[in-house]
């Protein structure tokens, strides 16, 4: 079963929940950190990395000898990554989505596709946890190809936990898509509620069953609870505001390590996920 942990709003506690869930479930867990722009789970799980794989995407390379500057490549590129100005083809690699259209449709066959490193996937073990994460190369804009590379390792026959990036658009969808259940972590503030609403819309669009974990539950107002009740969304767990948890987090110590009593609570969270999934 693949469980993704997402949030809409950043900094609500996705990584805390994902890491603690993995550490509470014991053996043979797979952990995929799909926040390839800013991966943080390794800080808490401290995996021993045993394999590093470079992830390449294909980008166009124009053979100026064959090119007639007809402009077809610029015309077909939906991402404005190619411009043809007089006798010059300008390429903006950070805008390229690697669709291959320019190369395929060039009438002169003047565009060849060459690999470009997008980032790396690191694989290793943290105790009994099989750990994987992606690291997007700094300056690269398009992260979904790297997220897809991390997700190739996801196994349905194991318990796989995916730590998703914040937001609700392409990188999040790429991370959450295909999971059997999605846990949305939020906080009881107007920002938490607004972004939860957006995240619920996205997960429902993907037709994935979902539940909510409210972090720092005693901090703000009751509107998140009211929203969940109205929308018939199960609240799977509440974690109170606790300075000790915050300090442990700041030092890279997982919640269940600082407060081992929480292991039982995270096991219950897992049980609830199984029940809700039906």
């Amino acid at each position, binding site marked *: 079963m693949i469980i993704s942990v997402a*949030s*809409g*709003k*950043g*900094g*609500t506690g996705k*990584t805390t929940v994902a890491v603690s869930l993995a550490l509470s479930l014991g053996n043979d867990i797979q952990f995929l950190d799909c*926040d390839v*722009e*800013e991966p*943080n789970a390794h*800080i808490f799980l401290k995996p021993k990395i045993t394999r590093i794989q470079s992830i390449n995407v294909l980008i166009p390379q124009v053979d100026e000898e064959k090119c007639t500057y007809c402009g077809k490549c610029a015309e*077909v590129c*939906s*991402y404005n990554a190619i411009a043809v100005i007089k006798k010059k083809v300008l390429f903006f690699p*950070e805008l390229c*989505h*690697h*669709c*291959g*259209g320019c190369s*395929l*449709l060039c009438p002169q066959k003047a565009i060849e596709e060459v690999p470009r490193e997008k980032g790396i996937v690191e694989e290793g073990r943290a105790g009994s946890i099989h750990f994987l994460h992606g690291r*997007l190369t*700094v*300056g*690269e*804009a*398009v*992260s979904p190809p790297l997220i897809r590379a991390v997700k190739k390792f996801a196994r349905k026959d194991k318990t796989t936990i995916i730590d998703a*990036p*914040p*937001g*609700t*658009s*392409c*990188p*999040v*969808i790429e991370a959450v*898509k295909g999971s059997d259940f999605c846990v949305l972590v939020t906080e009881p*503030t*107007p*920002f938490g509620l*607004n*972004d939860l609403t*957006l*995240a619920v*819309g*996205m997960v429902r*669009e*993907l037709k994935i069953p979902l539940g909510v974990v409210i972090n720092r539950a005693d*901090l*703000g*107002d009751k509107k998140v609870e009211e929203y969940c009740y109205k929308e018939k969304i199960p609240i799977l767990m509440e974690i109170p505001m606790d300075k000790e948890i*915050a*300090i442990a*987090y*700041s*030092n*890279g110590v997982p919640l269940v390590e600082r407060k081992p009593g929480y292991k039982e609570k995270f096991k219950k969270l897992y049980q609830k996920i199984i029940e809700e999934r039906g």
Partner: protein
Amino acid sequence: MKQIVIISGKGGTGKTVITASFAALAKNKVMVDCDVDAADLYLLLHPEIKETYGFTGRVAKIDEDKCIQCGKCQEVCRFEAINNFIVDPISCEGCGVCSYICPQEAIKMKQHPAGNWFISETKYGPLIFAKLGIAEENSGKLVSLVKQKAKEIAQNQKRNFIIIDGPPGIGCPVIASLSGVDIALIVTEPTLSGIHDLERVAKVSYHFGIKTRVCINKYDLNLKMSQNIKDFCQTHNIEIIGEVPFDIVVTKALTMGKPVVEYSDNEVSSRIKKMWEKLEITL
């Protein structure tokens, strides 16, 4: 006219709280929310929407009557968006290659509503923001669009500043937010995750040659980590222009829907005010 963007790498470090306070402090400015995935700034600035515009996306659509199931489209699609001659609109990135390659001309690229963007008025000045539709692509394009509109408004109305609330991460919407700005303020927090993410986003900012400053939010939560941030910034020649303490008043102001500098006159507010003064001088 100067542009300042507030970014963080890691989400939830306090970008919007700081941006909203700058909106209350700065004179003669335009605000723009570039976190189009999860725009929150409007919750603190309470805009009155003046103009609403649609934003469209593109998705491939196969005409079943014309399709001969040759499979060419599935072969060329790099996004695994076509299965059994049906397009999955969520996976489709709108590149259009399938429509060009189809020998039957059975595939058309359809425009569809992908969100809205708004020109609004707040008591602090104009705010441009957007709401990307559910499960839509192209947030980088939308970011560029709202920024461009803010710039036009700022030029027409002779505004001094554009204050940009940026998205988390280091990918396409962040890069779009950074383009053409005069200064980037990175709001970080004294946690290992915060530092890790600060280092990556600072590299992005450096990569694009943008002047960068750092603010340590909740600095007193872990003084040792705050020191590590200072060491990092010193090594990389990045000036820290503010340290804001942890205070429950920030959440209270948020719950009341107000910029913290207007809600309370305490240490948090005075530190943010000092930070804005420094930024104003730098700009």
